[in-house]
């Protein structure tokens, strides 16, 4: 199938592949998916000797052309955010390329556009964070209306602090720590002030759920399954660090509350 396109520009293919891999990795895709996509795209050149090595922070890929030079590149991926829509869109482009339904130029343009795409507006994210604690509270079997309202208060904290945190370049660890500490403190103090009989623990648990490292855990598991032990452990450690930050934050919040006489 590959022989039908001998005129394929290898250099363009190479850069398109790199771009696709970079977007995938920085959007939180599993290592397996990134490597697989790179492999499939590089194979389009008709050259069998295509290799890639991907870790959570960098991509190394090489294309050994027996007739000309070997192409190798290394790309560091530093800023990562979870954007599953990008993963899905890049996947679609890669499929179209594999099926010869899209030209390299089109693919390059689309990928650039995906890279620039912003996703949902900030106010929508804040609204989500505002409501998520109540949703979790319901999921965990909470039925008390007063506690639900306190969940809204902690949700407000999560939403507001997100806006502040985006501006400051604080290390992720302290970011999570401060958010969790605020949640624990607010939940405790609101319970004491307004409704003595609500379940503070359940409110805190519901409110820290948006902070727990669900993505890192899931991705780590799937990476490990595919034999990517390096990234699996790296993401496992990432999950553990986030979990520690949240835990220490909750501890700090509760401790602060106990200091109040």
């Amino acid at each position, binding site marked *: 199938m590959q022989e039908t396109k001998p005129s394929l520009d290898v250099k363009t293919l190479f850069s398109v592949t790199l771009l696709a891999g970079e977007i995938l990795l920085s959007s939180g895709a599993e290592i397996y998916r990134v490597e697989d996509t790179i492999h499939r795209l590089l194979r389009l050149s008709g050259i069998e000797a295509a290799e890639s090595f991907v870790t959570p922070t960098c991509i190394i890929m090489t294309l050994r052309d027996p007739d000309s030079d070997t192409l190798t590149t290394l790309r560091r991926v530093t800023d990562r955010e979870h954007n599953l829509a990008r993963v899905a869109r890049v996947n679609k482009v890669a499929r179209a390329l594999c099926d010869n339904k899209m030209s390299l130029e089109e693919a390059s343009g689309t990928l650039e556009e995906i890279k620039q795409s912003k996703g949902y507006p900030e106010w929508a994210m804040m609204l989500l964070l505002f409501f998520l604690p109540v949703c979790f509270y319901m999921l965990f079997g909470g*039925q008390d209306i007063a506690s639900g309202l306190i969940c809204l208060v902690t949700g407000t904290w999560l939403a507001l602090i997100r806006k502040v945190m985006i501006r400051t370049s604080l290390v992720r660890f302290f970011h999570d720590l401060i958010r969790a500490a605020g949640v624990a403190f607010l939940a405790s103090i609101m319970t004491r002030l307004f409704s003595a009989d609500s379940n503070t623990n359940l409110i805190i648990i519901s409110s820290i759920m948006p902070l727990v490292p669900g993505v890192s855990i899931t991705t780590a598991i799937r990476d490990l399954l595919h034999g990517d032990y390096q990234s699996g452990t790296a993401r496992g450690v990432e999950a553990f660090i986030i979990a520690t930050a949240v835990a220490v934050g909750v501890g700090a919040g509760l401790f602060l509350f106990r200091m109040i006489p």
Partner: protein
Amino acid sequence: MDLHILVLIGGFLTAAGAALLFQVPVRQAMLCGGIGVLASFLNLLVSRGSEATVLSTFAASLLVAVLSHAAARIVKMPVTVFLIPCIFPFVPGAGMFHIVYSLIESRPADATMYFFSTMEFAGAIALAIFTVDTIFKKRVKVHTKCT
């Protein structure tokens, strides 16, 4: 019994909300919500309406993984799009909280107990994803021949 409806609504909202938080398009996020409802229903069923147990979490994660793979095949999107948001509500955040709380209350024995129970929950989720991934991986190799 009717209060369990609240739990199911919570299951929908948390899964759909998590999906939106990770920028999943609205239509697929609703699908995530649907999976969330079914999973929390199974969770309730296995745990007999009380708090989630390791077994009920395992069952729910298994259902989530199967449905995510099915949904991914149907709408032709990566499994991650469905799997991550739908597993999110079952991540043992409660266990994490109890570990810290016990430590603050100076009850290290309880903290150790909660640590191991949290590990059990995480292990149950991991095992469920492992199992379903392996099954579907086999099927894919037989059926598709991309490139």
